[in-house]
Structures are given as C-alpha cells and as structure tokens.
C-alpha cells in the first residue's frame, strides 16, 4: 500500500474543493453503500469513485486500492460463504456444507461494500493535504487542534510506517531471512519479530514529532490560528449534490427492493 494513501499533487476539480466538503461527500458515499443491498448500486458507487479518481489524475492508484480490497473481500467471502445455509442451494458439499444463493449474494455484497465504502475515503485522502484536513476541521468546525492533529497524524503515519517496514524487511533479508516463502504461516512467523524494530522506531518517531510540535507552539494554537481560510464555492455544492443524490438513490432503491 506504499504511496497509495499519500496526497497526490494536482489542480483538478476534486483537488480544488473544500476539504470539509470532500470529507462529507466521502462519508455520504460510504453510508450510501450500506443503505442499499443492490449489487448493481454498490458497483455504481465504485464506478463513480473510479471515474472521479481518473478525473483527479489518481485513477491508477484508486484502481490498485480497489484490487487490493477485492482480494480482502474474496478472503471474507470464502470465510463466510460456507456458514450461511439458508436459501436456495446452489452447491452441496460433503459434511452438510452448502453454498446457497442468499449466502452468495450476501458475501459478494459484503466484499463489494467494503470496496465501495473504502474507496471514496481513500480518494479523499489522495486529493486533500493532511494539513488542509486538520486546518478545515479547526477553522470551520472548531475542533480542538490537538484532536484534529492527532487524526491527521495517524493518517499521515500510515505510509511512513509502511516505508519503515519495507526498510526493516530489507535489513532482515540482508541477514538471510527468506521472506519470499510461499507458506503463509512461515511468513507470519518471520514477520512477527519485525514488530520489535517497527515499534521502537515508531515510538521514537512519535516522540520526536511531539517534541518538535511542542517547541513550535503546538499548545498555543486555537481555531483562529493558521493563515489559510477555507471558503465554500459553487463547486463544493456540486460535489456535495452528486454525493447526496447518489446516496439518496441508494436509499430509494433500498426501500423499493
């Protein structure tokens, strides 16, 4: 996932929207996925997100995240499909295990919902600077800066830690650890000792960041601090409308079917 959740520079429509509107639109799209149990609707949400991603110049990265989420969804599908026995039986297996139409629908819907609900948030993170997210939360919603900073820092550290983990894996490979084994259990047992250096470096990094923030007057910040203003424009209304209409459609379809 290295580099996938990082901010990507650009001057597209999505890049220029208000950070708060982008957060709101992403959440509305996520909620929409859970309001409707139609597979076609969830696929439409994923499609809209992919189109939005391509229009912002990050389509390739959104697609990569989508394929990763599909893999995760497939694992969940395999874990659940054999435990739902209600409904029309499609396949009968030994030991009374059955694959039913309802079970299959539920599992596929779950896998797609995970993708549909995650992609808008991932896209939002790719087109919005972390400093703008915390800035807008503080300026517009008057969220205390320390909480906004904690949220954005947690998100910002995901790629940083992924990078650190890659470095640790590289260092251990140089010592002769065979990470390219195909046995998943062996792979997990090899990865577990790496938690120690990762934890140590994470704690050090967080300690350094907090000291640095305190020295730069972190505790003195209020919602009035900060140079940037985050005004609302017509394009923000347009983005919010698209998200709202998509979710309203989901709600309507959910009620009708």
């Amino acid at each position, binding site marked *: 996932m290295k*580099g996938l959740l990082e901010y990507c520079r650009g001057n597209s429509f999505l890049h220029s929207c208000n950070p708060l509107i982008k957060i709101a639109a992403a959440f509305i799209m996520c909620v929409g996925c859970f309001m409707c149990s139609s597979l076609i609707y969830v696929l439409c949400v994923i499609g809209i997100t992919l189109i939005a991603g391509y229009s912002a110049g990050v389509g390739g990265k959104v697609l990569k995240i989508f394929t990763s989420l599909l893999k995760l969804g497939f694992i969940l599908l395999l874990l659940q499909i054999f435990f739902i026995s209600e409904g029309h039986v499609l396949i009968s297996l030994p030991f009374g295990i059955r694959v039913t139409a309802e079970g299959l629908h539920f599992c596929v819907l779950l896998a797609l919902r995970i993708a549909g609900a995650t992609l808008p948030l991932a896209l939002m993170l790719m087109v919005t600077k972390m400093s703008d997210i915390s800035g807008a939360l503080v300026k517009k919603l008057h969220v205390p800066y320390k909480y906004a900073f904690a949220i954005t820092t947690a998100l910002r550290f995901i790629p940083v830690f992924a990078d*650190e983990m890659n*470095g*640790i894996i*590289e*260092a*251990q*490979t*140089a*010592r*002769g*650890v*065979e*990470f*390219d084994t195909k046995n998943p259990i062996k792979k997990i047992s090899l990865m577990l*000792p*790496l938690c*120690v*250096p990762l934890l*140590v*470096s994470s704690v*050090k990094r967080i300690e350094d960041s907090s000291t640095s923030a305190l020295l730069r007057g972190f505790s003195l910040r209020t919602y009035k601090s900060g140079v940037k203003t985050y005004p609302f424009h017509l394009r923000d209304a347009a983005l919010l409308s698209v998200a709202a209409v998509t979710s309203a459609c989901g709600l309507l379809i959910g009620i009708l079917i």
Partner: protein
Amino acid sequence: MIELSNVAFGYAEGPVINNLNLQLEKGSFTAITGGNGAGKTTMVKLISGLLKPTSGCVRLCGTDTRELKAKNRAKLCGFLFQNPDRQICKTSVYDEIGFSLSCIGIAGGEADKIIRETAEMLELDTKSEPFSLSKGERQKVALASVLAANPEILILDEPTTGLDYRECMRIMKIVADLNNSGTTVIMVSHDMEIVADFAKRVIVFEGGKIILDGDCRSVLTDERLRCISSVLPPQAAVLGQKLGGRFSGLFTTEEIISDCILQSQCRMHNA
C-alpha cells in the same frame, strides 16, 4: 570478486543507475562517495542482491545475484545499514547475534562459540539489551550480527553517521582489521577524512554514473573533484593543494604533519 556488467536500475520515480560497469577485486577496500541521491545506496543494494537490476547483471564470486537465495547471499555478503535499529530485532545482544546465525543455518554449540567470539572481538556484553545502548554500541551490535556470518564481502552504508570520533574509530579499526585479513569492504561514506584514512580505492558517484574512480590518493587530490561532484575533499588534501609544491600530493593530516616534522628535523640537523 564483484562484477557489475551494463547494470541499469530505476524506481517508480525514474531511472537511478544507467549502464554501470564495475569490477571490485577480492580483499579491496573501496569507498563510494557522492552527493545526496547520486545512487550510492542503490548501487550497494544492487551489489548485495537486495535489489535486482532491471537490465545487466551483478555477479558475486561468479554467481548472478538473481540466482542467490537470501541465506546464501548473507553468507557471502554482509550489509551494515546506516540505521542499526532496522536490523536489531531481539532483546539481548546474544539473541541478536544468534538470530543472524540461525538465518544461515548455524545453531547449537557452534553458534554459541561464534556469538561469544564475535561479542568479545567487538567488546560487547552479550547480556545487555540492544535498544538501551548508545547509537555507537547499537551500530556495533548490528556489525557483530553481520560479522558472525563471516561474510567474504562487507558492505557498510554510512557506518559512521551520527557517531562521535572515538566510536567512529573503534568501528573503522575493526573494519580495517577485517580488510587486512582478506575481507572485501565496500563503504558508502560522506566523511572524506574516514575515506582518506581507510579506503584504498575511491569511486565518486553523481547522477547514477561513476565520475571519478581510482586509488584514494589520485581521486582525493584530483582538482576536478570539487568542480564536478558534490564532494569536498579532506581538509588535508585541500591544504596540500593550497600549499602546493611538495604538499600537493598529500591527502591525510598525518601525512602533512609527518612531512612538517621531517622538514623541521632536517632544518635543525642542517643548522
């Protein structure tokens, strides 16, 4: 010993190394230097087999690094990273050194003997906890875990960064002793004083290409060094160039001091 033929490599952001050809002899001590982002670390990672070239091939003792398994690679080539914390993953020095040995299939009494010998050589307490040690001590623990495998090639990526003079010299003395006993050493460094004191061959890298390559004296006293690279020659070499004459070929502080002492002794003798 080490042979790079038409090697090219790049990351997603773009190519880093293009058409690189290089040969390093057994028992040599080579320093690789250059500006930030010049491709030094990428090159040593290619040599160690941690990175695979996109084209061309890297051979260690005649074997293509693509064909070497991690275990065999570690036996052949040890790699000391700039940040020792990425290497250390055990809670005691004994276990840390032992982990390297277990990776290459050495265990039991033989492992115990090697651990104790290596710890003794580096003056390390096997019972101490690596993460509670100073950076210099942690670097020594990382070095001990690399040396325990007794590699024929030792790669050091900026091993002295962040260390005080004493710690720096302790580590470099161990490396120099290993080199004298036949280990091939490749060291990436920005510290030109260290390079001048220990390396036999210097390679200057810029933009993924070798711009200067030769024995330590010829490269460090080359007047082009400052013009075409981001490397500042050692203070002694700069002083030697400024003084000119018999000083112009000198590049270590010791050489200049020795020359001055010799000269003053001659004058006293003549007087």
